[in-house]
């Protein structure tokens, strides 16, 4: 069966499964099989923000004052986040749009991906602001071993699903020989399994992998350093919280069998592999923390504390998708992070007077001539 951008068949889209049913034809939102995705779209739209709205002028000065090993921590996290959002800005679209069958889910996927492109744009905004030659930073992302190691794990499930779906769309069901990849079995079962594992690995990407960077960004901000960056990260974290809820819903709907009974069987079959995806990611993130701090820690954070935080957050996320927790860490070793992660419209930490949404359109006057010295215009 090949993909059609406007399926001419007549069918009741309220009876389709989330994936691998009919291709969506009419984009309509007056009725939804799963209203949650419509609600996520609305929430995501209400979160809309632009990186340029956040003033970064003092970050430039702060960055120059950071110790070399702190600059390494800061830049490495930015590179890793750039990788993650590069993947997320395109992959839900490329992998999931050809197989989605509900209009509200299709639009959720597009809205979700779009918000990731804002994240990518914010990294350019940050990097342009703190270094004179952004190319050096961006080029390192594809060659730095510590980062490329991660690129494999975050893209492998997406890539496999994309390959399988394109075989399915061109050649149909059966076993197909692909040069250099060997024989690939395409059955509804194998496709759905690849889908389920992809969604699990995306959940891990958004719900765990970002949090090491988040913690470092907020640890700088706790020392009133790189505060503009922290405001951007706060906005990104708010989006990511919504994205992870989206994938949790997909996983839980699949596992419940309410959407597609076969998916419940697949979810059961994949339980062990899914568990391993979570655990493997947590181990990689702990390694990443050691790499960040290889030349020295920063105040309030070190590789060990960050490792415990990774374990803790992994437990929280596993529990949310019905898995038994994997690690012994029972308490959040850096509870102060929650005050940074919380949405601004909810008052929680009164000491946190500066609210990032107030920064919209702000112009910072606290600049001297010399701040522009090494800007090339």
């Amino acid at each position: 069966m090949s993909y059609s951008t406007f399926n001419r068949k007549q069918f009741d889209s309220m009876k389709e499964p989330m994936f691998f049913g009919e291709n969506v034809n009419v984009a309509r939102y007056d009725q939804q099989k799963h209203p949650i995705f419509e609600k996520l779209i609305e929430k995501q739209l209400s979160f809309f923000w632009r990186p340029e709205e956040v003033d970064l002028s003092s970050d430039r000065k702060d960055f120059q004052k950071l110790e070399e090993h702190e600059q390494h921590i800061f830049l490495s996290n930015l590179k890793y986040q750039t990788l993650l959002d590069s993947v997320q800005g395109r992959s839900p679209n490329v992998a999931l749009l050809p197989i989605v069958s509900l209009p509200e889910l299709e639009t959720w996927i597009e809205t979700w991906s779009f918000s990731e492109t804002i994240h990518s744009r914010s990294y350019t905004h940050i990097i342009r602001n703190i270094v004179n030659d952004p190319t050096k930073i961006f080029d390192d992302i594809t060659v730095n071993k510590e980062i490329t190691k991660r690129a494999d794990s975050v893209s492998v499930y997406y890539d496999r699903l994309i390959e399988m779906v394109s075989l399915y769309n061109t050649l149909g069901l059966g076993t197909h020989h692909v040069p250099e990849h060997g024989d690939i079995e395409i059955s509804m079962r194998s496709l759905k399994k690849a889908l389920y594992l992809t969604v699990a690995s995306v959940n891990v990407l958004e719900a765990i992998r970002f949090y090491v960077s988040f913690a470092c960004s907020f640890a700088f901000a706790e020392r009133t350093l790189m505060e503009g960056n922290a405001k951007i990260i706060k906005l990104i974290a708010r989006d990511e919280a919504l994205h992870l809820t989206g994938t949790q819903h997909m996983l839980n709907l699949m596992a419940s069998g309410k959407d597609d009974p076969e998916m419940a069987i697949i979810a059961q079959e994949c339980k062990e592999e899914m568990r391993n995806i979570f655990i493997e990611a947590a181990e990689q993130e702990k390694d990443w923390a050691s790499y960040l701090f290889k030349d020295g820690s920063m105040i309030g954070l070190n590789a060990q504390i960050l490792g415990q935080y990774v374990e803790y957050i992994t437990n929280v996320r596993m529990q949310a998708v019905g898995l038994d927790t994997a690690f012994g860490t029972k308490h959040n070793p850096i509870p102060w992070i929650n005050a940074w992660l919380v949405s601004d419209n909810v008052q929680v930490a009164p000491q946190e007077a500066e609210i990032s949404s107030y920064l919209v359109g702000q112009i910072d006057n606290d600049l001297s001539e010399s701040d522009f010295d090494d800007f090339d215009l």
Partner: protein
Amino acid sequence: MTTLTSNKPDKVRDKVHRVLLGKKQILVTEDEPLLVQLEREGIHVEYQCREGYCSSCSIKLLWGHVEYPFEPLAWVQSGYMLACCAIVKSDIEIAFFSD
């Protein structure tokens, strides 16, 4: 056990319920969600959004009845509740996932 109410309750305001957490017992009202009331007692609960869309505050509801003034966006596992937005409606017993 978990129900949704379309609109805010009116008069049943100062009703007090017991919340059991391990060996601790805390008294809470229906005026505010459970999370803030636990925090006031010095009990740390994980949270992020405090608006029902991230599931970070998910805790076990062993028995008892809670209601959500608005339907949370986050998935609520059966046997769990979202502390940030749930209003306690009877005596309840809760536990953290780690217990």
